[in-house]
């Protein structure tokens, strides 16, 4: 690949994938920066203050671009780039299919541009959830499909990288970091089936005008198939960092390698058959299936609760190895000045709030208290911004030296950036929880502040706007920190990062913890029972269809 061989003078990266990884992650970061700035404007527009360019059309265009950039572009490109990095550095051998990986990258770029231009032109203001019968220009959806196809190529490269390594190293455990990355690839293939079916069989034909009607219940159900697991797709790199990067950065060991494998397997199993909890308030599903999926959702909280303990114990090992004593002395002994350690601490704090909000959301009838209010917006911003993005930032800080061949001269701007991100996120989302409980609803361009109830929300909306401004500053500082390393860092960085070692490094593991054959069968069983009838009902008792409403 010419693109792979062209190398900026001065960069001394030793990795074969360094250009590939850097290209992916810079695309992710560009989308992220744009989305952060749009987010600030959206909060300004919703506040009692007067925002420029504030029309309904502009607002929903902006929300769509914000959602698509954050949820589809930032995440997919980051995960692909980080996955390639892991495949090369964990397996210690060249990535198979480097040319194919570049092909997938350009496919993703084409898709991203198609979707972005559709949104900017105003022909796709349907938000990133694009619920039919509102329908955008077909090019918006085709762009998204291309991004998904690019990610499928990534999945195959990851799976084969692991299989071929295992064939050459019989009996050896796949390194945890690679096992987890491939778990994400396997889960993503399952995850995208729902939205791919919705787009290919329902939405794109409707957008082209081949179908004048659409079965809305079916489309929402297929989207829900994807909607929960996609969040775990985004979260996987964060958990990978918790298990395989944080303990090393803190100067200790991972408490248990087996628990790490189990946690990732539980995510693979239980993040899929739970999507109906997004449709808890929908009239097209019965309460029995909703409860079944609530029950399975309760099980998907288990790996996170297990992770809290395993990672805290790993932190305790590091703290004690650094001389911390007593029941809590190890906390202070941790090297909080290192970005990965700081980010992990802040991420867990935000995960506490975001996960707690999630426990409320999933609680069956209790979902009615908060559904489609700002509470939900706060919940997923804490999960996404608080746990996903802050760990992406920490991962970037960890791997950037090995990608550029340069070390950070000064870690202070890195810490400042992470702290600002944390403060901004808490200041923005805590008022949203409060407003959501009072009934402030989502996805509106403007509020009537002359209404007495809404009037009392005004000050809190302004507080959250301040949080948003802090976040935007942090995002720009993040871009600056990484961009500067390409030019100004200290030469002589290590060629690759080392991943954390467990207290007892596994010598051999059961086949089930070294591959995904068993788990794929169990996922199929879970999906069959959790989604079988909820999808089949639309074909057995076809509901009346709705007329397609074109927007753009």
């Amino acid at each position, binding site marked *: 690949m010419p693109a*792979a061989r062209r190398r900026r003078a001065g960069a001394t990266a030793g990795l074969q994938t360094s250009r590939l990884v850097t290209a992916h992650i810079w695309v992710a970061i560009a989308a992220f920066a744009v989305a952060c700035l749009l987010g600030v404007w959206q909060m300004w527009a919703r506040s009692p203050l007067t925002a420029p360019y504030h029309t309904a059309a502009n607002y929903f265009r902006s929300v769509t671009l914000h959602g698509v950039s954050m949820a589809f572009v930032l995440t997919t490109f980051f995960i692909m780039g980080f996955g390639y990095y892991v495949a090369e550095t964990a397996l210690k051998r*060249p990535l198979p299919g480097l040319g194919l990986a570049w092909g997938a990258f350009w496919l993703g770029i084409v898709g991203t541009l198609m979707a972005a231009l559709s949104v900017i032109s105003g022909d796709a203001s349907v938000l990133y959830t694009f619920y039919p019968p509102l329908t955008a220009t077909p090019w918006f959806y085709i762009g998204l499909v291309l991004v998904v196809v690019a990610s499928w190529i990534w999945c195959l490269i990851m799976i084969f990288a692991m299989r071929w390594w295992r064939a050459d190293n019989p009996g050896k455990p796949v390194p945890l970091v690679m096992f987890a990355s491939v778990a994400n690839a396997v889960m993503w293939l399952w995850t995208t089936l729902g939205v791919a079916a919705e787009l290919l069989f329902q939405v794109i034909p409707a957008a082209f005008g081949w179908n004048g009607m659409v079965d809305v219940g079916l489309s929402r159900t297929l989207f829900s198939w994807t909607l929960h697991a996609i969040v775990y797709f985004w979260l996987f790199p964060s958990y990978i960092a918790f298990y395989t990067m944080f303990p090393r950065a803190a100067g200790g060991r991972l*408490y248990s390698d087996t628990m790490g494998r189990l946690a990732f397997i539980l995510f693979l199993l239980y993040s899929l058959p739970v999507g109906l909890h997004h449709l808890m308030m929908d009239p097209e599903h019965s309460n029995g299936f909703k409860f079944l999926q609530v029950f399975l959702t309760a099980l998907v909280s288990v790996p996170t609760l297990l992770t809290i303990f395993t990672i805290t114990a790993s932190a305790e090992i590091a703290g004690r190895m650094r001389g911390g004593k007593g029941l*809590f002395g190890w906390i202070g002994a941790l090297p909080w000045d290192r970005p990965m350690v700081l980010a992990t601490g802040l991420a867990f704090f935000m995960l506490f709030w975001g996960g707690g909000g999630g426990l*409320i959301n999933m609680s069956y009838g209790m979902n009615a208290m908060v559904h489609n209010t700002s509470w939900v917006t706060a919940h997923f911003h804490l999960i996404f911004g608080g746990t996903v993005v802050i760990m992406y930032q920490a991962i970037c800080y960890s791997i950037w030296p090995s990608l550029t061949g340069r070390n950070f001269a000064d870690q202070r701007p890195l810490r400042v950036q992470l702290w600002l991100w944390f403060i901004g996120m808490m200041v923005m989302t805590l008022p949203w929880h409060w407003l959501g409980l009072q009934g402030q609803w989502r996805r509106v361009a403007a509020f009537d502040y002359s209404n007495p109830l809404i009037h009392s929300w005004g000050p809190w909306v302004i507080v959250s706007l301040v949080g948003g401004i802090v976040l935007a500053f942090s995002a720009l500082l993040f871009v600056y920190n990484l961009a500067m390393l390409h030019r100004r860092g200290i030469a002589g960085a290590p060629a690759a990062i080392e991943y954390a070692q467990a207290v007892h*490094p596994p010598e051999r593991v059961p086949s089930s913890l070294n591959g995904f054959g068993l788990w794929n069968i169990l996922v199929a069983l879970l999906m069959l029972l959790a989604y079988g009838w909820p999808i089949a009902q639309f074909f057995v008792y076809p509901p009346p269809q709705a007329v397609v409403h074109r927007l753009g």
Partner: protein
Amino acid sequence: MNEPSYPAGAHDYAGDAEEIERLEAAMVETPRGAVVVSAVAVGLLLTGWLGLYFLVFLPRGPVG
């Protein structure tokens, strides 16, 4: 394309004797602190959940 070289068996990293000693010393107490910290965190989580359940959700009336 120049093939990068990878240190052989680097993922079998074991640490030096001094580090193993510190690790063994650390493992004497671990995970007592982690149990307490995680238990407090999860306890607060459950308290918050029950608080919203009893103080907000139930008083707002039944739905179905």
